[in-house]
């Protein structure tokens, strides 16, 4: 195998697993799809413009619910613009019959009837030749159905991305920490802490539901910075007192969670302006959710840091062999401090995004998230023993987890089973990684 391909496989082997999963879920969710909205309008309109075309007589049948009326009005507008004569029947088949009677009274033949899957199937239309001979034999036009996987619908894909954004963003920091051969268990609690802090700042200092954008921004930045400080504190304990990261961050996990409950007094804080959801639910650019955009930008930056910058090299070096790194002049303590601070900051950001998505801050947020985040990192091929791993691998790992969850939702697997499957997938991913390593080591000295 060529070294380049080999490296790609070894760095991003998980990407193939992700693609396989996508193919799998696409296959099993392949279903009959009906166009809706504008697509449906355009399709039906262009069909009718072709025949009967200009001057033709068309009846549009729609039920009285919003979706149908919007469709009917849009179609009417388009067809009228194209010079067709349009009559709209809204309501029950009974209402359609009345309209038909009126049309029959004019004694002009009806060229076509447009409707959706439901209205086009009304019996009243198929009975026209017998009931209303005056109307002739109108063609019944409805949006054409097609087969497409539910999984691959763009809304679903964006939904996956949006759901995983928080986990993926925090996983950036976690990847750095794990690459230094550490671990950060506190991130889940920091999500809650950050969400509660941001919500409280907005409620108490920025004017609650009338808060300005500036006020909200400052509140969020403050929450994120405080979480960064918590991370830096963990890093300090780890480097200065050489307490194992597992213990320090476990402690901070409890402290963070407790603080979140204290600050929120055990309640959700929802006195937040509606505009706050911009970050979590908005989609200003090409329909891509803002959180997903932010995630992509952060991954780009993190990838550059890890692969191009001295800092990234130092992170790998510290995790690969702390002593060798120190003896090569790497400022080991500063590097570790950075990793934990970054992890805290990103957890804070994740908390703010979550608060924005849910338009409230609650101490229950982020429960167990640290484990999903670690899973994303590990599934992405980063070794828990440190020194190796790729930032983009983590992104792939996060998406793998998201795709599995989403796929199980789409295929109606009950939620209890999700955890079982997810657990097994993580195990298999790590197993593959271990086997890959063993193959390396076999060539190595036995001393």
């Amino acid at each position: 195998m060529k070294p380049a391909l080999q490296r790609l496989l070894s760095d991003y082997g998980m990407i193939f697993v992700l693609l396989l999963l996508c193919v799998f879920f696409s296959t099993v969710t392949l279903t009959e799809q009906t166009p809706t909205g504008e697509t449906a309008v355009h399709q039906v309109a262009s069909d009718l413009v072709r025949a009967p075309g200009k001057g033709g007589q068309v009846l549009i049948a729609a039920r009285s619910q919003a979706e149908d009326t919007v469709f009917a009005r849009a179609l009417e507008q388009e067809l009228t613009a194209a010079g067709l004569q349009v009559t709209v029947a809204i309501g029950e088949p009974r209402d359609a019959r009345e309209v038909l009677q009126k049309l029959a009274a004019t004694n002009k033949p009806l060229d076509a009837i447009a409707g959706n899957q439901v209205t086009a199937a009304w019996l009243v239309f198929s009975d026209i030749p017998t009931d209303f001979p005056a109307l002739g034999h109108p063609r019944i036009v409805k949006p054409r159905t097609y087969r497409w996987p539910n999984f691959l619908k763009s809304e679903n894909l964006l939904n996956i991305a949006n759901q995983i954004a928080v986990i993926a963003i925090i996983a950036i920091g976690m990847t750095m920490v794990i690459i230094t051969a550490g671990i950060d268990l506190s991130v889940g609690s920091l999500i809650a802490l950050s969400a509660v802090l941001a919500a409280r700042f907005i409620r108490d200092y920025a004017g609650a539901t009338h808060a300005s954008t500036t006020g909200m921004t400052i509140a969020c930045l403050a929450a994120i910075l405080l979480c960064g400080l918590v991370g830096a504190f963990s890093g300090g304990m780890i480097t200065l007192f050489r307490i194992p990261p597992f213990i320090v961050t476990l402690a901070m996990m409890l402290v963070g969670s407790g603080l979140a409950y204290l600050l929120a007094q055990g309640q959700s804080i929802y006195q937040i302006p509606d505009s706050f959801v911009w970050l979590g639910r908005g989609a200003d650019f090409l329909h891509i959710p803002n959180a997903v955009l932010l995630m992509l930008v952060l991954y780009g930056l993190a990838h550059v840091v890890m692969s191009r910058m001295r800092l990234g090299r130092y992170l790998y070096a510290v995790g690969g062999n702390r002593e060798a790194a120190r003896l090569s002049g790497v400022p080991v303590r500063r590097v570790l401090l950075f990793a934990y601070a970054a992890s805290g900051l990103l957890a804070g950001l994740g908390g703010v995004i979550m608060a924005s998505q849910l338009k409230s801050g609650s101490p229950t947020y982020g429960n167990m998230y640290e484990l999903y985040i670690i899973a994303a990192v590990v599934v992405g091929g980063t070794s828990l023993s440190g020194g190796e791993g790729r930032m983009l691998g983590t992104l792939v790992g996060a998406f793998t987890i998201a795709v599995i969850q989403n796929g199980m939702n789409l295929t109606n697997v009950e939620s209890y089973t999700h955890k079982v499957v997810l657990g097994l997938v993580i195990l298999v991913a790590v197993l593959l990684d271990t086997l890959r390593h063993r193959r390396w080591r076999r060539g190595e000295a036995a001393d």
Partner: protein
Amino acid sequence: MAASQNFLHALVGSMSQGAAGNPTVAVIEAAFAHHDLHWRYINMEVTPADLSDAVRGAKAMGFRGFNCSLPHKVNVIAHLDGLGESAGIMGAVNCVVRRGDQLIGENTDGKGFLKSLVSVIDPRGKSVVLFGAGGAARAIAVELGLAGVKKITVVNRGEERGRELVELLRTKLKLEAELVVWNGDYAVPAGTDVVINGTSIGLYDGEARLAIDVHSLHSGMVVADVIFNPPRTRLLRDAEARGCIPVDGLGDAREPGHRGWSKFWDRASPSGRRGHAGGLGKRSRFMTEAAPPLLEMRGIVKSFPGVRALRGVDLTLHSGEVLALLGENGAGKSTLMKILGGAFCADAGSIAISGREMRFQAPHDSRAAGVAIIYQEFNLVPGLTACENIFLGQERTRAGFIERQHERQRAAELFRRLGVQIDLDAPCRRLTTAQQQLVEIAKALAFDARIIVMDEPSAALTSHEVERLFEIIRDLRRQGIAVIYISHRLDEIFTIADRVTVLRDGANVGERPIGELTRQQMIELMVGRELKDEFPKRSVAVGPSRLKVTGLQRGRAVRDVSFEVRRGEILALTGLIGAGRTEVVRLIFGADRREAGDIQLDGQTLAIRTPRDAIAAGIGLLTEDRKLQGLILGHSIRENFGLPNLDWLAADGFVNLRGEREEFARYVETLRIKVPHQEQHARNLSGGNQQKVVLAKWLARDCEVLIFDEPTRGIDVGAKYEIYLLMNELAAQGKAIIMISSEMPEVLGMADRILVMHDGRITGEIADVAHATQEQMMQLAVA
């Protein structure tokens, strides 16, 4: 070779009359030469009247043993200190061996034969028919009796000889024995398991027929013939045709000393199998005594990539003996002991305990065989109590519950046996080093270890504690436990050891009783190698002082160390492992915090607190352990190279990848680092290439002071030379170079000046390296 410096041979030989006609000597001397043994075999003509004086003389002259031929086989007994089992029963001795200061008579005439017999059948409870009642038959009968056969039927033409043998077997061995006077074809009775020809019928005449009814031989019977020439006698061919299992006489021939046969050895000796085998038999008998030794390691070979750690090492250990295992650092002692302890698997060679071949795959295998290894770093769990540690892994449980009371009693008993008082309930971390060592010894005794290996047991003990340890070792010796004692402290070895085995470069170079060695000889044996042209010559004018350290101090490891390194000078820092050499340079490099001391470069005092400071000041350190400290094995060599150089290979935090690649490519070329590409992981390189990558790291920084800690450890000869050349070149550029090395030839070959350390202090300086000797250095190092 040490042999060329030692003109004293170990002596063995033979006492007989008509000695001039006995060619044994030629065979054995050839075998000694072949095995490179510093031994002599001397053929001695002794009359019966002089026998007493001859034996006393042999004892006085330190003979390791001698063969006894006619007419002394019986008479010699009166002049010996004791008899082995078979010799005692037979009332005849064919060889005398020295055990301690006693001469013990043994009779091995039947042993070799028995050995080949045992390889096909377990003699216990078997019925045997034996033809003949002469010397050979007699010896075989006694060995068979000792091996536990049920019944021996002696078939002999002469009634008197036969009856004598049967009587001997009945009275001395309490065996079922009967005599059948042999006339006409003898029919082997049904129920016989083994048929043995102990007569000389068939010797040299392959067709000579034994008077035996061939049809009475049945398939499955073992038929043996002591005749070894030709090996396929008519008896054996007939027996094989009848479906019997044949055993030829070659096994017997490997055990020399039978006068009737030994005179034929000359025919076979030049290249034949017997002659050579005979030599081997002789050697092992005198060196290991007749009974199988407690431990016998033979031809142990162990290779690590790039290094052949052991190249066929032999080690023999008897019960109740303290064997000192000596050798320079890296001679292979630890590897050998790890093989004995099951931590490593030997590539080749055998380990036998009490004559039984063992296969140690894992530490518990060797433990089950009664081997306990007390490593320098104790194997104790610090948080568990002394008692819990003793029984760790061998807990006595009932229904899963530990029988604590029982364990406490056992532990108390063990400590009593060792004559020490240790709180059973104290966690081991609270015990002193000496106490922890005793817990280790108790742990060994708890599983009835018969062999205890102590690796540098005295290294961390005070002199008083060492005394105490010796008393305990002597106690163990009295209890029949054998101890392998590894130490660099020669004085201790003279105090405690009975015998010394010296390793050098993974091979045996000497095995002597302690009384035969002087301290000087010991050092010679350990060092022993001649300096060839391993080191490139160099002539650099040594300039003014560059690096100067004063009063370096850290705990007990480094005590008030001061020295200076001059421009263009290679200063060697030597001494034994643990003397504090590495610790000194780690202080200079800022890897450890120094308690006191001053470091100056070119007259400027350096404020070094971390390696980063030292690197910034222009100091580079090639660490002792490349894999643990020098390289990040899982990263590419390019990244390893770049690590200390990112300050100038990166701008605004961004690594200049192209610059890094080009810079490294230059070093790959000039240092001739053999790698397929720069992305190769460091772990996949050979030791030499790994060292070159580390060297490149520091060369790229253009350090003013370069410290090489064991720069050539585990590196092949070619790469060594290249590294020496580089060191010379750096010195020529005016750098100050410190080299730590345990390899004394390397120190002598490379250094301009040598500092020897011992116990954290500098104990000597050798400025005139050209006339220094390894002995001189060793003397300072073990001071």
